[in-house]
């Protein structure tokens, strides 16, 4: 699915195929239009990532090379297990001496906004959930009661709370 197909899917889910609810924007009430929908999609990627990471989903596991003074990766959620790396100001440093053992972390799913062209790098089931979640955010803006939808997505209430940044 490409980014525009994803946006089309969200529009379909919120019954806004003619782009009247989220227009090109430019006014105070609807400043962003299609950009607004992309923002909701990114937010949905975040929420889904938090949930998958909380369940220690393997698809989010990534290896990083650590050099003293290097920045934390943008998609960093938390380390897999305890590792001898300290993080301050977003910079990593080894505790003690460098080690050759692999240092792994759980990474957030890439944002929809990062792929203006080409296929999105998600599995199909993740695509559907991301679109559905973005649709609930969009409907929520128009004051629809979306608690039922969130429950169906398994995202209601505490399940959607942010996981910690460190450890499990």
């Amino acid at each position, binding site marked *: 699915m490409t980014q525009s197909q994803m946006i089309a899917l969200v529009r379909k889910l919120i019954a806004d195929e003619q782009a009247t609810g989220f227009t090109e924007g430019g006014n105070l009430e609807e400043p962003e239009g299609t950009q607004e929908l992309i923002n909701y999609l990114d937010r949905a990627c975040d929420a889904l990532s938090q949930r998958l990471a909380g369940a220690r989903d393997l698809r989010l596991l990534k290896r990083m090379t650590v050099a003293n003074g290097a920045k934390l990766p943008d998609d960093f959620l938390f380390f897999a297990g*305890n590792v001898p790396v300290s993080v301050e100001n977003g910079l990593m440093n080894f505790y003690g001496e460098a080690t050759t053992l692999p240092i792994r972390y759980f990474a957030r799913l890439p944002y929809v906004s990062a792929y203006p062209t080409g296929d999105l790098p998600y599995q199909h089931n993740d695509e559907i959930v991301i679109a559905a979640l973005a649709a609930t955010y969009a409907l929520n803006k128009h004051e629809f009661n979306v608690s039922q939808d969130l429950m169906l997505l398994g995202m209601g209430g505490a399940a959607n709370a942010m996981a910690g940044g460190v450890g499990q």
Partner: protein
Amino acid sequence: MFPVSRLVTSMRFALHDMQGQQYSDHELIEAINHASALIYQRLGERFSHVALKRTVLIMNNGEARLPSDFHNVYKVSVEGEHRDPATLKVCPVQYRIAADTFYAPGDAYVLEYYRTAPVVADKTEVLDAPDSLRPFLEAAALAVLGGSVEGAEAAAAACVRTHAGAEFSHLTGCGPLKVMGGRL
């Protein structure tokens, strides 16, 4: 001597964490080192031969550096006889140990000592411990990971117990030479 990677793999199997989602390799290596330290400590306490190591000290002007993994002395012996240079009579020798240096007259001595635990830093390394220690190391390391002091101690104790008595041996069948050996 066995490669650490195999130990790590069995530990992960026991922890149900083959993909490394819960525990990093660092933690497992740390646990293995802790377990090794504990076990060797307990072995040494019980005077088990497993913790023993033997080396030859070459004296240099009455001094010799102790090995880096020296923990406690077991026995010092000398090759051949020692003769007093003045009287040329066989006489006993006195040695001193202070910090990491061995002081004694003469040329060379055989030192048997209890060693400190072997440690590793990487999965590719080989752990310098007998293969018979492996299951106990594994059990103790798992207990360390789980935060269970009792579990680790129990593993160490079992290790010591099962390795005890190995020094007793006697040869069956008499012959012209009778050798008796065993614990000192």
